[in-house]
């Protein structure tokens, strides 16, 4: 039997080799001349977009299979071999100062070894195991894309995940993580090459080490995340632009466009690479209009080619090309603007009391998920590099790729800007003459010491995201991975229990993410789509008095024949959403049964209007947006009906709403029937737990996972009989219930 480690290493190496081969075929096909060392690195970073797009197309065609990947890779490698792509080409780069060369190799090798063992160890990162690889595993299982509307992460662009998928097919989770590790290695090498090419070799080496040794860069880069890949792509784009500026080789427009566009395919926030590249060309060619137009058109077209697959996939499947964002501009039933607003607000804040805490937290504290290390407190000194043209270029790129940080203040969102800041900072130190050289060396050595995992643990918080201890036996799978996973990924156990206890067609609802990469079952996480939020809301209704429909609103008016009626909301402001549990129509005190010929509408969130007409106290239609005048919910009877009363059953969690009732006469005119409702309070409801479970079951969910840390976890445990649920398995405080 072939050891697992061989599969892992093969998956990793094969993916990197195929990407590099594609890159070399492209760069050499365009007759672009690079220095020998930089060509290897740039070929991988340029080939990655091509391989990713190829895998996307295979997924679209339903051909995401190991055999297909093997064959496609073999063809690419064969063609590359025949064209001599494996033979080095070009002159060597100007040499690096021997001292810096030795220092760089020493530290790079030590940390690369550390990172390699962590990268090859079983995957335990939170996002990697939940959605980056959860989706990758799903695509491989299903041999490609299938419409998935219950997981907003499936709507994010997944360019790097396509590379993960290629590797995953052979070596599973660790092979995918090692593809990211390849980007982690490529980034500092590209930085060194940049320094050597542009007569700033020590600054390149020093900056490369500052980035490579950073704890957050290390832990992100060894995981199935994408931030280091995005940083490598951003730096590659910068690199190509600088080379083009120096050499004016028109053939570079194509890789510039591909890499810029692939930034978007890798992560939405990196879309800024496209205006950056176009703006760069615009500035440099501002006096050569014809050339500028050709350059801009080529770059834009290549970039769009990389972006188009992801835009189109979202447009076709979730009606929002940039889902899960901008839902107010692209209204859809899958992600609501209200949720988007809450989500973005959290990412801008992470619960910090003040933004002044950020510098300390991203360098030492760690509450923003990982640290760059204390030496990065000196980052503002990089501004001194503005005195040099190269420094200005670096800091402009840092500014552009740092812009998205305002939207998400997690430390890793600064990784794409870090390489530029690091080289600029190194330039400032090394520009101080002999003393500066010593300072630069001291900076790197201190950074290395403070970044080593055992030292890091001494000054960062216990929850800081960092490397865990991995033994060789674990990395090479001489020791089975099960034990490592159970020790380092607390929710691993529940994923395996789901796999064991839930049938293949079963659906599991959970309030908190579980490592979907380790189960093949359909897991619905409460916050990850509008329909999942409905399920979650249903289960929370019996537990939250403010969610129960005990606020009764009654509109009475002189009896008349009406064809359509609508309740209109007239107030503005947050944080309330407007919601209605039931809307009922009466004449002479008798309710009209809801006839099949009725047509129901709502604005906004029209897709869930039926929840206000289903006779269930545990469901409700909600605007899913904060209040604005003109929101309405409407019943069209199809023909005129005599009506004199409308009753609403509402929850209390909407203190600011103001409502009026309008009706449409047979002649088609709308008029106000009642300016405001009479209010009363209904008695509390009982038996809602059971009703909630029935609703959830009616929506195809048969299982529920509740973590002991979740809201209301104790109620599910204590009142299981009232809910109608049975605990069938437990692991590390995660309980799996079957809905009875």
């Amino acid at each position, binding site marked *: 039997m072939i050891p697992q480690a061989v599969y892992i290493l093969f998956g990793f190496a094969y993916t990197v080799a195929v990407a590099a081969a594609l890159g070399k075929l492209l760069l050499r096909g365009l007759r672009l001349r690079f220095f020998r060392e930089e060509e290897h690195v740039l070929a991988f970073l340029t080939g990655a977009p091509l391989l990713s797009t190829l895998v996307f197309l295979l997924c679209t065609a339903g051909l995401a299979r190991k055999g297909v990947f093997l064959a496609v890779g073999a063809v690419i490698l064969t063609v590359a071999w025949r064209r001599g792509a494996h033979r080095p080409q070009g002159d060597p780069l100007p040499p690096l100062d021997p001292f810096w060369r030795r220092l760089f190799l020493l530290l790079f090798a030590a940390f690369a070894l550390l990172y390699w063992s962590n990268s090859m160890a079983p995957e335990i990162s939170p996002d990697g195991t939940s959605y980056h690889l959860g989706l990758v595993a799903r695509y491989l299982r299903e041999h490609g894309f299938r419409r998935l509307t219950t997981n907003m992460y499936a709507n994010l662009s997944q360019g790097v995940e396509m590379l993960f998928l290629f590797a995953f097919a052979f070596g599973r989770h660790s092979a995918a993580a090692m593809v990211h590790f390849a980007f982690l290695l490529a980034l500092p090498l590209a930085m060194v090459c940049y320094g050597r090419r542009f007569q700033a070799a020590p600054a390149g080496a020093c900056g490369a080490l500052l980035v490579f040794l950073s704890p957050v860069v290390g832990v992100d880069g060894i995981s199935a995340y994408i931030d280091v890949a995005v940083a490598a792509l951003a730096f590659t784009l910068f690199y190509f632009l600088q080379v083009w500026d120096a050499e004016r080789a028109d053939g570079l427009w194509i890789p510039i466009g591909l890499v810029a566009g692939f930034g978007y395919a890798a992560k939405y926030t990196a879309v800024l690479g496209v205006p950056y590249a176009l703006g760069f060309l615009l500035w440099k060619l501002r006096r050569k209009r014809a050339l500028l*137009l*050709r350059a*801009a*058109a*080529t770059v*834009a*077209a290549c970039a*769009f080619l990389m972006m*188009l697959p992801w*835009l189109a996939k979202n*447009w076709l499947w979730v*009606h*929002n*090309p940039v889902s899960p964002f901008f839902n107010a*501009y*692209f*209204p*859809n*039933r899958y992600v609501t603007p209200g949720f988007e607003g809450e989500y973005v607000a959290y990412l801008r804040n992470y619960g910090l009391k003040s933004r002044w805490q950020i510098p300390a937290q991203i360098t030492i504290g760690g509450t923003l998920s990982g640290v760059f290390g204390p030496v990065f407190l000196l980052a503002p000194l990089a501004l001194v590099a503005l005195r040099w043209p190269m420094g200005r270029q670096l800091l402009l790129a840092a500014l552009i790729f740092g812009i998205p940080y305002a939207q998400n203040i997690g430390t890793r969102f600064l990784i794409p800007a870090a390489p530029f800041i690091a080289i600029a900072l190194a330039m400032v130190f090394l520009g101080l003459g002999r003393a500066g050289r010593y300072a630069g060396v001291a900076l790197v050595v201190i950074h290395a010491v403070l970044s080593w995992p055992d030292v890091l643990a001494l000054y960062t918080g216990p929850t800081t995201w960092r490397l865990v201890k991995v033994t060789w036996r674990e990395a090479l799978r001489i020791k089975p991975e099960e034990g490592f996973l159970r020790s380092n990924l607390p929710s691993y156990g529940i994923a395996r229990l789901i796999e064991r206890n839930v049938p293949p067609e079963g659906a599991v609802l959970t309030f908190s993410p579980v490592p979907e990469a380790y189960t093949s079952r359909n897991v619905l996480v409460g916050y990850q789509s509008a329909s999942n939020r409905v399920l979650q809301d249903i289960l929370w209704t019996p537990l939250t008095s403010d969610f129960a429909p005990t606020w009764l609103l009654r509109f009475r008016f002189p009896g008349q024949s009406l064809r359509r009626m609508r309740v209109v909301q007239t107030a503005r402001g947050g944080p309330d959403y407007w919601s209605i549990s039931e809307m009922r129509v009466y004449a002479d005190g008798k309710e009209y049964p*809801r*006839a*099949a*010929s*009725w*047509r*129901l*509408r*709502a*604005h906004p969130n*029209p*897709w869930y*209007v*039926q929840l206000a*007409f*289903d*006779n*269930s*106290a545990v*469901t409700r239609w909600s605007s899913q947006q904060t209040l604005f005048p003109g929101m309405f919910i409407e019943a*069209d009877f199809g023909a005129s009906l005599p009506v004199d009363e409308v009753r609403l059953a509402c929850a209390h969690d909407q203190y600011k709403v103001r409502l009026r009732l309008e009706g449409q006469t047979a002649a088609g005119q709308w008029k106000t029937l009642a300016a405001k409702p009479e209010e*009363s*309070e*209904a*008695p*509390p*409801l*009982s*038996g*809602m737990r*059971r*009703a909630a479970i*029935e*609703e959830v079951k009616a929506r195809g969910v048969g299982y529920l996972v509740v973590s002991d840390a979740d809201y209301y976890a104790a109620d599910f445990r204590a*009142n299981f009989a*009232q809910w*109608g649920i049975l605990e069938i398995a437990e692991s590390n405080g995660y309980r799996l219930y079957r809905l009875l």
Partner: protein
Amino acid sequence: MRPFRPVLVSVLLVILTACGEAPEAYAPPPQRQAPEGSGYAYLGRYVHMNDINAEAYLVHDVAPAVESGAWRWTWRRPELRFYLRETAGLEFALDFAIADATFRQTGPVTLTLFLNGQRFSEVRCPRPGARQVRVPVPAGLAHANAVNTVVIQPDKVWVSPTDGAVLGFILSGAGFVP
């Protein structure tokens, strides 16, 4: 003109993607019924201890377990809650028993009744056995269209000599009746 073409196509495609889903109209969905046996209902004015939704009426010191499918033990200060739409002409009804086993230790027991925190009646139990009592509710104590709490406080409870566990009386049903 050729260089413009990719840009033009790009712009057109982006514009096309701006078409979101138009608001739609839907037919009424299947009407939900209360789940069978769920007791899915509003809180009422009377509860039997074996009602499926009885837990909704219990505030504290009433055992969660239903014994013999009909009754529950109470502890030191059992409290229940009821929703009353109207209060006129109501009496408080109590279906309960003093167990022989506890009576041997406690002797005669007196239950003091409190409505919304106000004492309104007493029930003396000089001997063990089952009883059904109705006591008038003084005007003004109960609140209409509101949740009302009732405490049935025994003056003595049985205390286990071995582990200190406490038992009050046996409760089968309670609430307000016309």
